[in-house]
Structure formats: C-alpha cells, structure tokens
C-alpha cells in the first residue's frame, strides 16, 4: 500500500465555493423562523406576515466542515443544537442572528441519531442506542444506556414537563424501543412493524408514540399500554419524517421517498389513521427528507427534498362552497324544471353571473343569489355561451342565432341590451371568443360554415361598438376556433384551432396566413402574447395534450411563424396558462383533478378533485368554479397565502445529475439527470432553473453544446437529441432533430458519449459511441430541412464487445482522428480522414491501441498542446495519466502518471488553465492538478456533493454535479 493519503485536503484556499444545491436534510420552524440544514450549511429564513406571508433568507453559513446537518433541536429560549453524522454544535439563535455565533464544531466517534436539551445537559443519542449526557458548561459527559444496543436507523428524545425523559429508538430489525433515561429501563419494546424503523417520536405530553418503517405504514400507539391505536397506510414507499402537530397531538405530518407530504388524524375508535391531506408534486424526483409543522401560529408546514428545494404549505382548510340548483331556486324564488342545469357563468370583480339552462340569469354576490330581471329567457334556452370582461364589468351572452346579450354591471342595477346579428343568416353560432388589450375589447363570432366570415366586433371601454370586421375563414374544413389574441402594436389577430393550427390576420389588410400542425397533439387550448414589438410578436401556444410552444410571428410580405421552444408536460392535459414574473404557470386536468402548475419552478400550486374536464369549469384569479353533477355550482377559493406560492428555495434535480455543460457564452448551464430530464438554467447569481425538458424517456448519459446555437444529449434506448437554443430574455429550447435508432430496438443500448467538430456553420461531423461497442460517425447538416439531407451515416462499426465510455474527434491539417476510451482500460485512435464522405464505411485498423488503465477509462480530456495534443485520462482504478500525442502520426507518449490520484473512481476532468485541470472522484474530493514536466496535485478539497460524477468549467468557475450541484471558483490561475 502506498503511504498516507496526502491529497484528501491540501491548499483548500485555492477553491472558493460559490453556490450549492443539494439535499435538505433537516428543517425546524421556530417562532417566525425556518431553520434549514442544507447539507452542512445552516440557512435561516424569517417569516413576515404582510398581505402575503413572505419568507426571506436572513442567515446562511457552512457550519460543519464535512458532515450534513441531520437534526436541529431548539428550546423555547432559542438554545440551538445542530447535529449530523458524528458532528454537533451548540448555538444561541439570538447570537447567530446578530452575527455573533460561536460556530464550534464538536464530534463524538459514532453516528448521532438525535439531540435534545435537558436542564443543563445536552443529550446525544448515538446509533448504538447509547445516550451521551453532556454537561453544557464543561462538556464532560456520562454514557447512559438501557442494555439493548442494537443499531438504530432512527430515534428521538422527548423531555416531558414533569422531567421524565424518554428515548425512542428505531432499530434495523422491526423493533421500536422506548426507554426511560433516568431509570435506564425499557418501557416498551414494540414489534408491530416489519423492516427497519425510519422514524419514531413520543408526543410532548407523553400520551402517544408514533412510528414508521420499511413496511410503509405509520403506527400510533397509546403510550401507557403500548398498544397500537391506529395505522396509517398511504405512502407509496418509505417514510422519512414524522412530526406531531404542536397544538393538536392527534394530528401527524409525514413525508417520504414518494415525494408526498401527508397529514393524518387519529379518531378514537378508528383503527385507521385518517389522511386529512396529501400534497404531491411539490418536490422533484425522489425523497422529501425533512419537514416540520406549525399549527399554532402560522398554520404552515415546511418540507425539504433531495432536490434542494424548501417549500411552505398552507395548513388552513380549503375554502369551498357549493350551491345546488335547488338552493339557488329557494334563494331566488325562480322555478326550475327537473332537467334544468347550470349552463354557464362568468365571474366579475364582485359577483358571479350564472345562466341556467332555462334561460334564467342569476347573480351571486355576498354569499347569496338574486334574480336578474330579464324577459328573453327563450332566446338562451337551448344554447348559450357566457363570456365577459371583468375589468369593465361586462358580461356577454351569445345566443344560437348570433345575437349577443350585453349585460353591464357597472352600476348596481344591471343594464341589459341586445346586439342583433346581421351577418350569420341561418347559420348557427358555435363559438364566442373575447379578448381585450389597450382599452379595446374584441368579440369574435364563429360559425361552422367556412364560407361565412368570422365577425370581429371591437368595443371601447364604455362598451360602445367601434368597429366590425369580417374576416374570411381559413380554407380548411376543420378549423375550429378555440382561442384568440389581438396584438395592439401591430394590429394583428391570431386565432387558435384544433390540430395545433393557428391563423394570423393582419387587421389592417385582413390578409391571413395559416400555420398547421405546429407540433404533435390536437387542440390548442390557449394562445397568449408574451411580448410584442413592431413586426414581431412572441406567442405562447398551449396544446391540450400537454405540449407548450413559444413561437415568434413576423410579417414581411407574408406572415412567418417560428417555433423557438417546445416541451411537453408529463403530468396531464393543459387547458390554459400564463406567464407571471417570468414564470410559466399552466393549468389543466389530470384524470379527475384540476391542477395549477408552476412549470418554471416545477411544483403544483393547487389541485381540486372535481371529476375531470367533462364539466363546465372556469378559472378566475382566485377561484376555481365548476359544476358538479350538472346542477351544483362549486366555488373553490384559491388562497394565495404566500409570496412565491411558498417556494422558499428553488433547488435543482431531485435525482443524481449525470452530466453538466456550460454554453459557450457562459450564460447557461444544462444538466442531465437520472430523472431523464434535461434542465436548462440561467447562470445569474447562482444557478436558476428555467426549463425542465421531458423529451427523453430513458436514463441520460451526456449533454454538451455543439456550438452557441445547438446542444445535444444522449441516453439509453439509443436516444440522441439535438436541441436548438435561442437566447432571449429567457433561453428557449426545442428539440431540433433526433437520430433514428438502429433497426432492432434494445432499451438497454445506451449512447454513452459523443463528440463533434463543426466543419462550417451548423454542419458537423458527429461521433456517437455505444454500450455495445458500436461506433457511428455522422455528418449532420442542420441547415437542411429534411432528415435524409440533414443526417448521413458515414461510419458504422464495432470496437470489440465492451462498453465505450469516452470519445473525442481531433482535426488538424486536413487530418481527422477518432479517439475512444472504454471499460477495458484502453485508449484507441483511428485515422478517419478518408471516411468522411457520405458512404457507409468501416473503421479499419486503429493507429494506436494502448492500455492506460486497469479497467474503465472514466474521464478523458484532450486539448491542443504545442504542435500536437495532450491527453488526460482518469480511471476507475484511481489513476490519472497524462499523454502527449505527436502529429502527424499521433504517436502516444505517457508523460505523467499518478497511480493513486484519488481514493476512488475518477469521474471527470475539466481543464481550467493552460497546464491545470480539475478532477472529480467519488471519494468526494475535488482536486486541482498541474502538469508541467511532472504531475502535481496543487489543491484538494472535500465537496458535500455525494456521487460526485461530472463537472464543467467556464473560465475559472467550475460546476460539479452528482447528488446535487455546486459551483466553485478556482483561484490563482
């Protein structure tokens, strides 16, 4: 064995950590503060109640050198203990907030399960079920145990008001042990669970015990007898946290691996814990590791996930009111028939206008209904559409024959008047679209007969008719209007239809252009203006099947539409959406649920079990209104209690990050994760997630930029996608082309890596390498339109049968070389100069085939050096090898070798300076190396990112991915 490892910590100051995102391992609500253990970092947030509850970071500091904070304990006086792994630290919250904290990290020699304060002692429970009773003045201690020293997965300590101290210990093998600290006697040995116990707590009155285990159930016990009172089933996988409510000790919160937060209640006599609430889709990926609840002051819970996100949740009961037709009848005195139902409605600022199927109109305000006096019920009897403009208190009701009833609610007494149709003849109106912009109010009438023009009426803000325009319908039988916008800058009208088709009209000339099948999918449910400037309109197009598109409409002699961004939700159907402070919010249905989803930050804002989309429903700013069983009106308030809908900290992927890349301009970071998404983030004061692209369905391998406009990603199932990136105020990304897989489908066949060189603008030689030893070289011309012209396979050959891990393409003086590194430890080079014409070739004999590592060549970097190249490889065998390659024959000389360059697999290499590069390895040490005559390690520093697997550099900044993401600056380059 070589000597001591000198390169686990060395000149750490050479690295300056910048930003970090990773698992949130502990959370605590204390008074108006939320304390978070963000790995080794302590973050403190302050809650401030204004119109909305705001939560702002007031403190952030890495307090443990290596260990993560797994537990936070705080007394009512603000005495604070942080603990995790072997470390602990005692602090005073006041002092910390005043910047006077004494952050002294201490340690025991075993894993700490939990800590608690008791009088002047700190109690530390270790993983062998032993409590260290530590004198807080002298830090002298006693060890206390109950004779039963099994290994613990979980545990807690409860100090009761009467001074009794109970230790609750969760063992690896189905047992919950409750013992008394003073008597050292076991009070209960509860064996009702199966599998490891992941959580156990005693409530503060000593009346109940709650526990959870690998069996996915929660059990509540009567403390006195040790019998199970009730069991809660519901979590789809393991449960990680359990908390009793602070005020109401028969309520419990739980979070788990299934990324759900659940609230439970025990009802006497019921052997099942009743699930009061379940919140899903609040974190990405897997695992909510931490959480806390405050049912006394702020009525909130807070959760923290593997995704590094911290999220607040509202404990207040959902406010929902229901009115049956019968109830409406008895309040208004109107009489409805047996078959009558609620036809449609429209929400104004202070009232809701409801149309009944018999033609009656009622008004709902201040929790009661009243009739709207009106005589033309018969005109609205069999068909009617209700729309309006809430800002000017106008409701519009369209009748079958095209007549429009205008109801003005500006004054207390509604003014009703009809606009008689003059255009439709005997045709029947099928749709009514409305839109307002710039104090202009537009109403469009649609009939199915394509020979009848659309009638566009323009009104002013007093709702006087200003203008009527007739627009010939697109010459297409299936053009069914679904939504419209009017762009006041250019005086353009855009109408959306089924088959992902839109029609654009120049209202000045009434000339029209039709854009068909903008994406797969069927109906466009919504179209919206993102920005508008002269001759350029950015439109958001939402498609029912879950796709959403950012497009740009321009007009020269004819209209032109360019799709700049396309993505598809995996969670359900889209009915609508909006962009609010640069965040895209989408809503729609998923099976029987209505949901509102923040797509930019990837969490659900609300949901409502309403039975699905086959009913009348409308979304107003703070209400979701729908009709149940055709005759019951349900008004579900959407309480916006929190700033940012409760998002305290954004975070990143919820699963391991496999690869990262920085755009050539340094503005974007893209990351590929085990969750099969590609995240596109802006590098601006940290890493700010913008998009989470769902096009891949298989496990990702690599992501790289091809040039400043295109990037590519590879995955299992032979998925390979080239993306087009458009930089605007936010980056836009769309799948541009995907390589067709081989004829025989094999879901395990992974495209392990790829490399490219740009021959001329957007024309590339691309090489892809596979887990079955396949090597393919392609010529990709992205200027071409059709796949056949764009993609040409030049070489299709096999290396051996082993998995290829790395690939590079080198080009110099009219020569092109291909270099691979594989699981057999070899680096192999071919001269492929003569293989680049569009004809399928074999690789032929290699010019270099040399073993550099014992097994997998895990990391490989090549850069030009003097007249030739320098190659650096890192292996699964912990070794680092530096080679020089001489042109013209690319002879390979090993010039540097370090057998033990890490204590475990080297996973990535990023070049940061002329002679310097950074390596990452799964031992969680990041190292700077210099090769200058010899190979020297300049600096080594621990990273809290576990499963450290990839890195990318931009100038002196390096981004490190694994179970989380962090960025560091390399000093002294």
């Amino acid at each position, binding site marked *: 064995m070589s000597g001591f490892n000198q390169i686990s910590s060395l000149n750490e100051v050479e690295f300056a950590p910048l930003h970090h995102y990773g698992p949130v391992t502990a959370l605590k609500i204390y008074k108006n503060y939320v304390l978070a253990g963000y790995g080794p970092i302590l973050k403190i947030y302050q809650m401030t109640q204004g119109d909305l509850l705001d939560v702002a970071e007031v403190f952030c500091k890495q307090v443990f050198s290596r260990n993560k904070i797994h537990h936070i304990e705080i007394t009512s006086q603000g005495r604070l203990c942080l603990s995790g792994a072997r470390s602990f630290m005692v602090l005073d919250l006041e002092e910390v907030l005043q910047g006077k904290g004494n952050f002294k990290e*201490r340690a025991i020699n075993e894993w700490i399960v939990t800590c608690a304060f008791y009088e002047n002692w700190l109690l530390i429970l270790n993983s062998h079920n032993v409590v260290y009773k530590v004198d807080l003045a002298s830090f002298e201690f006693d060890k206390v145990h109950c004779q039963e020293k099994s290994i613990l*997965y979980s545990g807690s300590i409860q100090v009761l008001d009467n001074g009794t101290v109970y230790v609750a210990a969760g063992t690896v093998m189905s047992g919950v042990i409750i013992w008394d600290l003073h008597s050292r006697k076991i009070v209960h040995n509860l064996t009702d669970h199966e599998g490891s116990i992941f959580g156990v707590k005693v409530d503060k009155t000593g009346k109940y015990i709650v526990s959870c*285990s690998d*069996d996915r159930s929660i059990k509540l016990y009567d403390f006195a007898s040790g019998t199970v009172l009730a069991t809660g089933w519901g979590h789809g996988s393991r449960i990680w946290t359990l908390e009793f409510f602070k005020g109401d000790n028969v309520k419990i919160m739980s979070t788990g691996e299934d990324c759900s937060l659940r609230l439970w209640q025990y009802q006497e006599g019921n052997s099942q814990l009743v*699930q009061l609430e379940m919140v899903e889709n609040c974190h990405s990926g897997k695992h909510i590791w931490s959480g806390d609840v405050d049912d006394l002051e702020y009525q909130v819970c807070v959760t923290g996930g593997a995704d590094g996100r911290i999220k607040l949740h509202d404990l207040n009961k959902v406010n929902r009111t229901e009115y049956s037709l019968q109830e409406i009848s008895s309040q208004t005195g109107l009489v409805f028939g047996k078959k009558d139902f609620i036809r449609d409605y429209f929400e104004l600022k202070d009232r809701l206008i409801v149309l009944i199927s018999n033609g009656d109109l009622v008004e709902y305000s201040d929790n009661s209904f009243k009739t709207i006096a009106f005589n033309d019920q018969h005109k609205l009897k069999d068909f009617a559409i209700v729309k309006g403009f809430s800002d000017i208190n106008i409701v519009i009701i369209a009748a079958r024959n095209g007549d429009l009833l205008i109801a003005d609610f500006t004054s207390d007494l509604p003014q009703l008047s009809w606009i008689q149709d003059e255009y439709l003849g005997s045709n029947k109106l099928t749709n009514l679209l409305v839109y307002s912009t710039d104090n202009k109010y537009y109403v469009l009438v649609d009939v199915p007969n394509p020979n009848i023009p659309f009638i566009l009426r323009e009104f002013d803000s007093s709702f006087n008719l200003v203008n009527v325009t007739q627009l010939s319908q697109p010459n297409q039988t299936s053009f069914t209007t679904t939504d419209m916008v009017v762009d006041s800058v250019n005086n353009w009208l855009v109408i959306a239809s089924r088959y992902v088709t839109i029609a654009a009209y120049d209202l000045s000339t009434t000339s029209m252009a039709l854009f068909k099948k903008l994406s797969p999918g069927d109906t466009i449910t919504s179209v919206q203006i993102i920005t508008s400037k002269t001759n350029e309109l950015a439109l958001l197009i939402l498609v029912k099947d879950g796709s959403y598109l950012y497009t740009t409409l321009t007009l020269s002699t004819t209209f032109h539409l360019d799709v700049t961004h396309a993505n598809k939700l995996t969670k359900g159907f889209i009915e609508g959406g909006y962009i609010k402070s640069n965040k895209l919010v989408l809503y729609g249905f998923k099976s029987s649920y209505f949901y509102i989803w923040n797509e930019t930050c990837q969490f659900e804002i609300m949901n409502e079990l309403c039975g699905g989309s086959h009913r009348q429903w409308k979304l107003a700013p703070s209400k979701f209104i729908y009709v149940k069983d055709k005759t019951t009106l349900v008004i579900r308030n959407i309480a916006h209690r929190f700033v940012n809908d409760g998002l305290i900290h954004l975070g990143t992927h919820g699963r391991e990050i496999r690869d990262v890349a920085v755009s050539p301009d340094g503005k974007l970071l893209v990351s590929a994760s085990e969750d099969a998404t590609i995240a596109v983030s802006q590098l601006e004061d940290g890493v700010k997630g913008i998009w989470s692209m769902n096009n891949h369905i298989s496990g990702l391998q690599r992501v790289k930029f091809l040039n400043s406009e295109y990037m590519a990603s590879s995955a299992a199932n032979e998925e390979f996608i080239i993306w087009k990136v458009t930089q605007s105020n936010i980056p836009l990304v769309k799948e541009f082309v995907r390589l067709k897989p081989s004829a025989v489908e094999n879901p395990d066949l992974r495209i392990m890596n790829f490399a490219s060189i740009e021959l001329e603008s957007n024309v590339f030689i691309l090489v892809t390498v596979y*887990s079955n030893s396949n090597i393919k070289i392609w010529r990709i011309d992205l200027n071409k339109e059709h796949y056949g012209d764009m993609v040409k396979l030049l070489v299709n050959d096999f290396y051996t*049968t082993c998995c290829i891990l790395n690939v590079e393409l080198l080009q110099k003086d009219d020569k092109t070389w291909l270099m691979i590194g594989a*699981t057999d430890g070899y680096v192999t080079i071919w001269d492929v100069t003569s293989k680049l014409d569009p004809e399928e070739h074999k690789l032929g004999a290699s010019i270099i085939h040399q073993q550099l590592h014992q097994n997998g060549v*895990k990391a490989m970097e090549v850069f030009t050096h003097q007249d030739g190249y320098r190659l650096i490889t890192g292996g699964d065998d912990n070794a680092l090898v530096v080679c020089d390659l001489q042109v013209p024959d690319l002879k390979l000389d090993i010039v540097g070798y370090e057998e*033990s360059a890490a204590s475990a697999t080297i996973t990535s290499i990023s070049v940061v300076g002329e002679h310097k590069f950074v390596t990452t390895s799964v031992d969680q040490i990041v190292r700077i190396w210099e090769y200058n005559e010899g190979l020297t390690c300049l600096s080594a520093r621990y990273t809290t990112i576990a499963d450290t697997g990839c890195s990318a550099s931009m100038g002196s900044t390096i981004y490190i991915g694994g179970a989380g993401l962090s960025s560091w600056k390399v000093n002294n380059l």
Partner: protein
Amino acid sequence: MGKSSKDKRDLYYRRAKEEGWRARSAFKLLQLNQEFNLFDGITRVVDLCAAPGSWSQVLSRELQGKNAKIVAVDLQPMTPIDGVTTIQADITHPNTLQTILDIFAGEQADFVCSDGAPDVTGLHDLDEYIQAQLILSALQLTTCLLKPGGTFVAKIFRGRDIDLLYSQLSYLFERVICAKPRASRGTSLEAFIVCLGYKPRPGWNPKLDLQTSTEEFFEGADIGKAGNLEHFELPDDEERKIAKFVACGDINDVDSDATYTLELNRLALEPVQMPTAPPYKKALEMKRRGDLIRR
C-alpha cells in the same frame, strides 16, 4: 432477487442460472479467487451476509472433500447448502458474533468474507455509515476468529472516507487491496477489500463483549481510528491511505457494463432461490386492492 427484463439481458445473470449459482455474485468471488488464490489451503470459513448463498455455493464446491467447516449468516433465510451451516441473524448484533464463535468452539478460521450490503436509503452519508458498520462487525468477528496469516474479504462502496477504512485495515493485514471484479458493474461504487495476511495487533486482545459497540471494541486496537476527544473537540483528520487497486477477472470476460444482443427466449430462467417477502408486502397488496388512501 427478482427477475426483471434487465436481469435477463445480463450475461452474468444468465450464466449464473445456467451454471446453477443462486446469484450472479458468484462470479465476483470466482474472479477474486482467480487473482488472489483465496481458496488455497483453507478449510474453515465464515461467509457473512450470505443470502441467497452463491458465495457459500462456491466455497462449498471449492472445499469439497476437505472436511471443511463453512458457516453462513444472513438476515434473510437461506435454502440449505450441502456442508454449510446457515444462521439467520443480524451480524451487527454482538450475540450473532458470539453464536459463530461458539460454533467454532475455540478453533480459528482461515477465511472470513462478507458480501453484505444494507438496503440503501439514498442519504449517502447514512448509507456509508451503515455499510461501514457491517464491515466493522465483520472485522470484529475476524479479529476474534481469524488465524494469523488468514484472509478477510468484504464488499465496500467506494465513497467518501473509504481511505479511512483502508488505513485502519493496513494495521491489521500485511496487504490490503481494493479489488474490482469484472462481474461488478463499473457504474456501481461496489468493490471488494481483499486483506491478506492477518497480523494481530501486538498487545491487543480482541474480546467480544455483548455490551460494547463496534467502535468501543476497536478502541484499544490502536489502528488510527479517532476516539472521543476531551470536550468533544473535533479530531484532526484521521489517518487515510489509498489502497492499491486491482481490476480482476480476465479482460476478455464478459463486461458487465456492456449491452449484448441476445436471443432472449433461448432459456426459460427460473430463479433458483425464491425471493423473500419484503417488509412492504402488505402495502403492495393493499395498493393492488386499491385500499391505499390516495387523497
């Protein structure tokens, strides 16, 4: 061990089934033996964390006719194997180690191995800690039972702080090697420490006491493990060493990271060992019946 379609495509998995091994892990031990001749001259062995039992099968075959003693221990029940004494118990519990010592009744063992792995939670530091506990428990038994010069092999996960373990082991063995058999997937952190030539610590008499934890057990061994410091001061970084790495198995052996094209229905593959019921079996049943509360 279930049988997913991924398993079916795995060549080691298929070979294991064809050759009658209960798990593909058998090849890891065989490849380790190829490199280190582990089985030369051994007769008394302990196989810790042995279920479903492919290592025990390998050992039973290799030691056939040598009047061997093989003791296999696991949390999970194991189908009996000829010439192997099986115990169902937790190896981190001191009682278990005592039971094994009792079986050996004062005799020493030539070889101790452990292929143990906990159910990972996904919290890397906790998983690494539990894995370290498994290794320390196995090492505890080893120091009480292994003859001087004997061999200890254990599964490790090469994560943070693995160099601490290498350093501690280097006090107890002539050679400590980190070996990666080709049957172990390159994408996994799994590897094996092969510790050759046990050399008892001079002046330390390892004694199993049911009341001491693994950490306390090693306190007197002086192997560079940090104990508790006065006032719980944060210890200086402990001794770390990087063990020599050896990839083993023939380079032309099947690559466990590669994708092979196979005729999938060539063989009807039935698991040799029935999978044991997971603790969450009831939850799965309830889910199937629609009894799990969704909202």
